[in-house]
């Protein structure tokens, strides 16, 4: 849309991505697998197998959960740390864990296991499979309220992404504070910088996000902010084409867009 493009300057910052990847440390488990659903007497568990071990990924809760279940019909990129916590649904608990549903459809990912008494939960889940008791299981989706009269200072925001993903259902809670702050301080300038990442898997494989993704992320964020009414500031949109060398221990923060709001 013409109005959306007005005032946007596109810059391309070419950064070389020389990468010598080290192997992830011993507790880290990064792998791509088909997710497995295990029913229980309460909510289902989400699991995945890697090198003969079964790992617990997460429980079904609700949209406010910090970790949302993946999807049958797709492989999932698992980035987590093995813990010594009691197994859940038979799986070794990964914590923290980050799950990225990979976009390609995969009909082989279709395993839904019935409930077995030995795998029932030994604790009350954050919410039952039906109606809750009147609250979200978590409140991480609460949109932060903008300060009533914020100081007019330059402020940086970071929008994180799942692997290969663009804006989705988690992002309103991240974009709203940017919008609120920029409107509150009558921002004159919005600088947006898009990044793409790579993930070092436990077997040494490096997964790179698509080459165009940094640009697409940056441009989409600009379009969304403008589409939400933030049209007054001047926008500078840039992106870093090269994905930095992944370490295997904390790769997900590379998948981001940085937004700097200037009074």
């Amino acid at each position: 849309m013409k109005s959306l493009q007005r005032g946007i300057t596109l810059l391309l910052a070419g950064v070389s991505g020389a990468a010598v990847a080290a192997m992830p440390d011993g507790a880290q488990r990064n792998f791509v697998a088909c997710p497995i659903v295990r029913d229980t007497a309460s909510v289902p568990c989400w699991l995945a197998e890697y090198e003969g071990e079964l790992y617990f990924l997460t429980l079904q809760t609700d949209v406010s959960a910090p970790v949302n279940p993946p999807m049958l019909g797709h492989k999932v990129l698992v980035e987590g740390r093995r813990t010594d916590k009691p197994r859940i649904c038979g799986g070794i608990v990964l914590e923290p864990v980050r799950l990225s549903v990979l976009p390609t459809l995969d009909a082989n990912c279709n395993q839904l296991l019935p409930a077995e008494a030995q795998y029932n939960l030994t604790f009350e889940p954050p919410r039952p499979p039906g109606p809750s008791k009147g609250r979200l299981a978590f409140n991480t989706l609460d949109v932060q309220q903008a300060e009533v009269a914020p100081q007019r200072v330059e402020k940086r925001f970071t929008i994180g992404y799942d692997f290969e993903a663009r804006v989705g259902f988690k992002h309103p809670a991240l974009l709203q504070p940017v919008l609120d702050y920029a409107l509150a301080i009558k921002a004159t300038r919005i600088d947006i910088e898009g990044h793409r990442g790579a993930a070092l898997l436990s077997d040494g494989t490096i997964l790179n996000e698509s080459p165009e993704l940094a640009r697409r992320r940056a441009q989409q964020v600009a379009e969304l902010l403008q589409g939400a009414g933030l049209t007054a500031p001047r926008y500078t949109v840039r992106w870093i084409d090269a994905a930095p060398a992944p370490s295997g221990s904390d790769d997900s923060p590379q998948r981001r867009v940085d937004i700097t709001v200037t009074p």
Partner: protein
Amino acid sequence: MAPPHALYPAPKVTLRWINPGETGGLAADGSYDNNQGQLGVLNAAGAVTATGHPFFAPLGSNGRACISCHQPQDAMSLSLNSIRRQWQVTQGQDPIFAAVDGANCPHLPQQDPASHSLLLDRGLFRVFLPWPPRDAAGKAVEPEFSIEVVRDPTGCNLHPQHGLHSAQPMVSVYRRPRPAANLKYPTHQNFGVSSFIGKNGLPTARDPDTGKPTSMNLMADARAPSLRAQAADAAATHLQRLVPLSKAQLDAIVAFEGQVYVAQQIDRQAGSLIEPNGPSAFGPRALLKGEAGVLGNNTSRWVFPMEGKWTALSRGNGAAQDARNAARESIARGHDVFMFRTFWIRDSMHLNSVGLGNPTKRTCATCHGMHMTGMDTANGWMDIGSTNLPWAREAPLNPWTTQKPELPLFKLTCRNDIAPHPFLGRVIYTQDPGRALISGRCNDIGTIVMQQLRALSARAPYFSNGSAHSLRDVVDFYDRRYNIGYSEQEKQDLANFLGAL
């Protein structure tokens, strides 16, 4: 060829049709019999004078008024019973059969009932939308998919003047009119409404008059951000009005729509639904009192509050009262099926894609969670398979049947430079692309804004494409789509509960 209405029973109750321009009005508390009992229509602002009121006046060039397709007896929508009766009474001359959208396509011979078969068979009006889609400013949106017409039983989508390849390309889909009542719920400004759409992070449509984000729960494809915008659009298209409505006319229409509430108030088996000390979910006054735009998928507020009533009612008070109590218990059980009966919800776009996982073990109330209406509090378009193949109802094709497909079929191919639809891939066949005809997005193909679940007994058939002729058909669709395995008792109870709303 048998007339289309031969498939369905004739209405058993006396209907009260209101013609455009009719004098008189509506009582503050109106009641209208239907096959399941009686509908209540509450005008919360008091009796309404129809004379000269823009909702009731034929404001366009084809003799229609808003009231034409939003009849009080049909819960401010339009039932198939009423449509057929009007065809019979007027011999097809009622303005609802106007060529523009009351026929399968304007070029067809208008005196022939076959030219109106989708309206007479399924209660569907033609909705014609520009291709490619247009944004709020009227500028073309670059769609994420291409569209081909695979099947065109109405002849409209390939017609040289009205079709996809005409000088002004249009896509014709066929949809049911929605109730112009209980509208504080679909237009709420409460939970789930913010500057960004909760299900995909895109900018929320704003009310052009107030500048505020909207709930985007009006219309099957959320193309109208406000009641004023909807009324203005409907005047230009459905009424074929040549000049815009005045501010005073829009004000009067929106004011009327904002104060009218509808719900079933008598069930023919369970008796009065609004007795003192009965469940507080029922009747139009419950909707007037209810809080708009709050989640009811919980045990502190409930979607449809029953307060545990109508369970284990007494027997031995005579056959009539025993039968009434049995019917009430069935409704209460149906409520519990709605709230608590879990099943695996799978491959439904904008439900399984928003953090619950695919599949998710949930209940009806997960999606139908808005207090008092069972709508989605957030922007509510979703693909349950009512229009997308392989789940949409299609005529069986074989050498032994004369049944022919009624609805068009489109093939949509998503571009290679975007992620494929997470459940349907890149090539999707659909009877109605739904929200995607507005947004141009691959993930929106076949998504339809869910409707309020109120006054259903007054306005069959159901789903946006009229593919469910009865509430039992609705239940059966879900049972098939999600492999629920409802027992016969559960099906009956759920249908009875829905019919009481």
